[in-house]
């Protein structure tokens, strides 16, 4: 395909409920996202053909763009000529609950963790992790495998040339369980073996005809190194050939698309990695949906993704409340609310997930729930995104007093440069300040962090586009995908309220401001989108803004729809135990950031 001749790109993301479509066109000498549209996804009865939703979305985009994308036969017109058609069509999919996998390995913290990382990185929801040391008795594990109905299984274990017996033992537990796939009764459960290559024949014998076996190179060939690529690629192949091929209409969709259809989160991960690499930054992305919350991170080039399967704002809202407790949610609320009524409201949202907050009180409550959902999802992510465990450490005398070692989280909020938000509660908040505040309270970024949102959730489309046309994907990402909210400045450390937290001086075009931020204080300084300013922060003793405790930092920072948020609340963020004190403080922050209409 001659990339220079591609002028019009049509992309869809087939979600569980909505098929979102965007049009990307060459405008002048660069690519821009020009129009978007959506239609209900049509995987389920009565239509039961995903391409109907795609065509409906294409028709809507076509009408808006004044470009006919669909012909009389109900198919996409290609290539583009004049006011008709598109040059390439690409798509992602998470319809039908996305890709659901079970993974297994020998040691939960080692090979099983690597297998989980491979599955998550490929865009799967991991339903369970079976490991020799997962504290369940063998018959309990077998029972669990019988109950689960994943789309496929990933089995790993042992380094190449190492122990064979243990991984065969796991295979011997999978075989008698006779796992059955979620869709279709007439094909065998696919199982990818990515463990000790010397044991692959023994594993094949142990599994017998209970599954369809695919052997790929070991995802942990030696303890010190992961090799997730081959397993991940095979997951994508099987997703296309087996899982999706059984979903209604996908055979046609696969034929239409000019690039392999990817699971939605897999595509988001790809684009985030590409951006982090190109800019040389550390980035975290979050997508909070109705049922699940995905967190993606790239730190020092290492990518991680987690899915918190039951943390979400509608289907799973009740689970957020159950997991964190109502007290933890209400600690973010600055007005009076009755707990018994709230409990009923939460359940009513769970059983009627499509409703939206009408009153300000309902909005404040939902945003409080979202802070907890995001906080829990990020905590799970930090716990998962670690350096490899099981690697022998060489220590010198200098390391004698340091507690660091293998298995430490690689998520470092001080090193975080960019935090990207997407998902209804974040991207549809009536005020951008609310989005910024939810992100800051939940993620507690330290030092200086750029905040942005992917307003129409375009990252999946761009992730697939990057496979066929990286240049176009990059250009659209930079120009149209992200809406910058601004920069959060938040030194790490704690001290008693009212003491000095830091001094700042902000200079830029038409901007020359300096001042002092006290402990517990927040301040917002407008700095328009597209503008940059220089900030010098001089933290007080015990506070660190990236250069070490008490050391000054100078940095170019980015403006946005909110501007610069100076956060003197310290890290880790602590809220007063006493209710009246806490509410008073929350009220001050609400006013400082102009979160809600006055008087609320």
């Amino acid at each position, binding site marked *: 395909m001659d990339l220079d001749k591609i002028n019009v790109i049509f992309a869809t993301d087939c979600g569980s409920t909505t098929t979102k479509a965007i049009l990307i066109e060459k405008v002048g000498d660069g690519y821009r996202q020009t129009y978007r549209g959506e239609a209900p996804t049509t995987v389920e009865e009565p239509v039961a053909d995903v391409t109907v939703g795609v065509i409906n979305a294409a028709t809507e985009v076509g009408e808006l763009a004044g470009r006919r994308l669909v012909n009389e036969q109900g198919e996409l017109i290609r290539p583009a000529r004049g006011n008709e058609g598109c040059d390439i069509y690409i798509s992602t999919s998470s319809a039908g609950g996305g890709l659901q996998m079970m993974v297994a390995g020998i040691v939960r913290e080692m090979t099983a963790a690597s297998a989980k990382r491979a599955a998550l990185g490929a865009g799967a929801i991991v339903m369970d992790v079976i490991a020799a040391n997962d504290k369940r008795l063998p018959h309990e594990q*077998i029972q669990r495998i019988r109950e689960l109905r994943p789309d496929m299984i990933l089995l790993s274990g042992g380094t190449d040339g190492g122990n064979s*017996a243990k991984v065969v033992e796991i295979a011997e537990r999978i075989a*008698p369980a006779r796992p*059955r796939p979620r869709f279709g009764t007439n094909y065998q459960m696919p199982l990818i073996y990515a463990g000790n290559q010397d044991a692959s024949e023994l594993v094949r014998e142990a599994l017998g005809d209970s599954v369809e076996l695919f052997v790929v190179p070991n995802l942990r060939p030696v303890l010190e190194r992961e090799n997730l690529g081959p397993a991940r690629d095979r997951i994508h192949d099987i997703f296309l050939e087996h899982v999706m091929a059984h979903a209604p209409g996908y055979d046609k969709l696969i034929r239409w698309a000019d690039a392999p259809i990817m699971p939605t989160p897999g595509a988001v991960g790809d684009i985030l990695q590409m951006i982090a690499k190109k800019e040389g930054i550390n980035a975290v992305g979050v997508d909070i949906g109705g049922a699940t919350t995905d967190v993606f991170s790239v730190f020092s080039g290492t990518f991680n993704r987690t899915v918190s399967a039951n943390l979400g704002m509608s*289907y799973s809202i009740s689970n957020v409340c159950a997991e964190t407790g109502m007290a933890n949610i209400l600690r973010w609320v600055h007005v009076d609310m009755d707990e018994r009524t709230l409990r009923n409201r939460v359940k009513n949202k769970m*059983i009627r997930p499509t409703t939206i907050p*009408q009153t*300000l009180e309902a909005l404040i409550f939902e945003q409080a729930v979202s802070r907890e959902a995001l906080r829990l999802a990020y905590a799970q992510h930090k716990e998962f995104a670690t350096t490899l465990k099981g690697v022998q450490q060489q220590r010198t005398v200098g390391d004698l007093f340091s507690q660091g070692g293998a298995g430490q989280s690689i998520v470092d909020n001080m090193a975080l440069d960019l935090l990207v938000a997407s998902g209804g509660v974040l991207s549809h908040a009536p005020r951008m300040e609310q989005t910024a505040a939810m992100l800051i309270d939940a993620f507690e970024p330290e030092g200086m962090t750029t905040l942005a949102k992917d307003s129409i959730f375009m990252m999946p489309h761009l992730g697939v586009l990057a496979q066929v046309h990286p240049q176009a994907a990059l250009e659209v990402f930079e120009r149209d995908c992200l809406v910058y909210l601004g920069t959060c400045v938040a030194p790490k450390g704690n001290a008693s309220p009212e003491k000095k937290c830091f001094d700042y001086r902000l200079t830029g075009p038409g901007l020359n401001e300096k001042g002092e931020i006290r402990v517990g204080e927040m301040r917002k300084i407008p700095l328009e989108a597209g503008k940059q300013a220089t900030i010098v922060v001089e933290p007080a003793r015990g506070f660190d803004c990236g250069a070490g405790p008490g050391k000054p930092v100078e940095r170019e920072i980015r403006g946005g729809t909110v501007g610069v948020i100076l956060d003197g609340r310290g890290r880790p963020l602590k809220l007063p135990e006493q209710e009246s004190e806490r509410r008073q403080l929350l009220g001050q922050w609400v006013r400082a950031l102009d979160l809600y209409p006055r008087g609320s």
Partner: protein
Amino acid sequence: MATYTPGLKVVGQIRHRVRRILPIAGNVLVKEGDRVNAEQVVAETYMPGDVTPINLSNILSITANEVKGSLLKTEGEQVEPGEVLARTKGIFGLFKNEYRTKVGGTIESASAVTGQVILRGKPIPVQVRAYLSGTVVEVLPNEGVVVEADVSLIQGIFGVGGEAFGPLALSCREPSERLDAGQITAEHKGKIVIGGGRMTGAAVRQGVKVGAAALVSGGIDDQDLKEILGYDLGVAVTGSEKIGLTLIVTEGFGEIAMAERTFRLLASRNGAPAAVSGATQIRAGVLRPEIAIPIQNVGAAGVRDEAALDSTLRVGANVRIIRDPHFGVIGKVAGLPHELTTLESGSKARVLEVAVDGAQRIIVPRANVELIET
């Protein structure tokens, strides 16, 4: 563009079909055209029994290679609990070690790699009942059947517990009357108790005590539900709870009256045998709890086709508001302004005007109403 807002079915007469499918292949016990009773078993099968792995290599301190030779029975044979499963050869016939199995089952395999022996327990019978008293209209060989019956059908919004059967027993006089312990007596044993407004925690406990088959009412308090279940329900995927009876709420959580029409329909069928299912799933592929009350001797002309029900949001349509601050209020659509309106929350959304009691008008987001039938 017409707005589509799915509501719940509350239908006096409908031809209802249910698929009754085994989880794995098995035997279908009835044939097409057979009349079946709700509780009749229509298909059955056996699930492979539970599996117990035993690592004899570790237990007897022998190599994995020696495990097969140590077994006293071969693969495919049966062992009983307490029976000696394996014995080592010992040294010169002395110092023999043996292992008595704690569980019984069939020896499925013995691995020379890991030294692990797999015992498979007795097959577990799985049966599927007809659920509806009606006619078998289709047999899916080795899978199950489709049963059809003319029924009054009421879908609830949320339920707990599985399938249950029994005659309807009306216990409240008004749709807004609370269902409390006092309204449930020993007479309700095996019956489907129909309440009005919120069912209290005490009513549920009383229902369990007297052995009622199910409780159906307008609402329930989440705090009560938490106490009944013993845990805080996280996601709305239910149906397998074992709390002693099935619960169905027709409207939602909190103090809320059953919809007038639902109440009238249930009251009109008082005493009729019915089937209920509490299974709820609110994810992709929504499943709502239901009450199906078969109707005897109905001509086809009297049966309404479900496809004929109007699902368009238009002026004059009956709606229920499903979110605070007007949760549970019922009215008629009085206006459908096209432009976006700013809500009190500050969000912009498409709204509609609802006329309540013919006079008062309330503005609510379109996402916060559901259509109800008259």
